[in-house]
């Protein structure tokens, strides 16, 4: 195991985060605050509680998920895409490192950054509403698994993407609709039966529901199903990446 290399990549990536602190940390805090003002104050004044939880508190786990998914995907994809774009990838490819070590460095940094931003949003939310966490262990587990899975997913996008448009395609066009329609801002029990059924095809529903359950003990789907789904996504990402590394897909061809 080339520990030095993993450390080098990890800290290199974290240094990039420090340099872009404003964009990386401040902007998600501002956008989260806006969500609280718009949804919490405007919508919340009409809905007030969902299944016994105040609306502002109800949307907090969904907001954290929204940002966590977006951040992990974009960090994970940018981390590997940028060296590909500038050409500096030659060095990583010619170094005595296994692809799994490269993955640990880049994905570890992307997930760390996502987790930090998630925590900051949790603290920000706490300033607006009263947030309680009923199942802290499960909350951490969901938090970690989601961060890792979607950083891996981002890494895959970064390897696949041939230009900046493709790089932004999924984080900009696919993730937001899925998160907005995945019950971040409402319980799917509020929907007509047909749309409830459709929602079950949305992977983000399972993440948001499970994560919200760890906060308030309320869920749209059984938390164990949520946990199984996220483990399944993790396995799919690892499997796909394994195939990519084995064939040298878009890196060593």
């Amino acid at each position, binding site marked *: 195991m080339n520990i030095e*290399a993993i450390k080098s990549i990890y800290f290199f990536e974290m240094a990039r985060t420090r*340099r872009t602190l404003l964009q990386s940390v401040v902007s998600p805090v501002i956008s989260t605050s806006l969500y609280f003002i718009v949804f919490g104050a405007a919508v919340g004044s009409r809905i007030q509680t969902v299944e016994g939880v105040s609306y502002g508190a109800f949307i907090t786990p969904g907001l954290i998920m929204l940002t966590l998914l977006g951040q992990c995907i974009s960090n994970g994809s940018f981390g590997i895409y940028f060296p590909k774009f500038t050409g500096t990838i030659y060095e*990583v490819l010619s170094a005595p490192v296994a692809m799994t070590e490269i993955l640990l460095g880049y994905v570890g940094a992307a997930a760390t950054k996502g987790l930090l931003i998630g925590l900051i949003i949790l603290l920000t939310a706490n300033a607006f509403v009263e947030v309680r966490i009923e199942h802290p262990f499960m909350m951490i587990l969901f938090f970690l698994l989601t961060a890792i899975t979607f950083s891996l997913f981002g890494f895959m996008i970064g390897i696949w993407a041939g230009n900046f448009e493709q790089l932004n395609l999924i984080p900009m066009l696919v993730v937001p609709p899925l998160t907005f329609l995945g019950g971040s801002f409402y319980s799917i029990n509020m929907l007509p039966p047909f749309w409830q059924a459709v929602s079950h095809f949305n992977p983000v529903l399972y993440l948001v529901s499970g994560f919200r359950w760890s906060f308030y003990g309320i869920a749209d789907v059984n938390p164990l199903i949520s946990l199984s789904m996220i483990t399944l996504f993790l396995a799919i990402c690892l499997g796909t990446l394994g195939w990519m590394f084995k064939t040298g897909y878009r890196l060593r*061809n």
Partner: protein
Amino acid sequence: MSSIISVANLSKTYGSGFKALKNVNLDIKRGEIFALLGPNGAGKTTLISIICGIANPSEGKVLVGGENIQTSYRKARSLIGLVPQELHTDAFESVWATVSFSRGLFGKPKNPDHIEKVLKDLSLWDKKDNTLRQLSGGMKRRVLIAKALSHEPEILFLDEPTAGVDVTLRKDMWRVVEQLRESGVTIILTTHYIEEAEEIADRVGVINGGKLLLVEEKAALMAKLGRKQLILELAEPLDKLPEHFAGNGLSLEQGGTRLVYNFDAHNEQESIAALLTRLSADNIHFKDLSTRQSSLEDIFVALVGGAK
């Protein structure tokens, strides 16, 4: 001398169907400077990329330091430092950070003293805190060399190291290369500047169209393929060559004032002496004499041209 790199039956076909390398066999000796010559698109960079692990081979086997580059890639790659042709750098990193990063990537523990020495050798020390985007092209080239040397490699690949580089840097670079060679590092370089290969290399390989056309000791190559030319400025112009001199590589030029003799380098002694004696016997005198030896460039052009 033992081989430090051994390339056997190596072929590479890209996804587009383009055959970049065709059955290349090459052995690089430990401690030598090997120059790989070839026109653009000949396969030089592809060959280097495969040896360094950047591209997967389609067929064939490569050993570096006796280790297979695919099954034992950690050991193989840790021996190699690569300076790529293009100036690929992280614009926003500092020189110090990027060179230290390279060392870590190759699994070596931090060693600020070594990094300091490398930066000083390449006249980069006063730029160590600058970010790469503030540097000129030549300085970036130095940084890439520093990165390649950061992990103390036994083999250094220089892919077109002097393309677009000024004289000062070129001299600095050859000085570093010389130091490295003295410390036992094997150096493989590709270049368009044939004078450089001629000046610095021990052996020369010529590649074109994905095929390795030849590999020779530089001196042997020059001797074997080098043509020599003897030019005599005649004291009195000749209308035409006396008949018994005709053929044999002799010709009159410049309105009969110059006699040019083309001959092979390996039988020069005898021929020149014999020719001069014969000329003198015929009362043909000359006021000046010069010889010219074909350069590696002429040889190269002849080879590559002939292969087309």
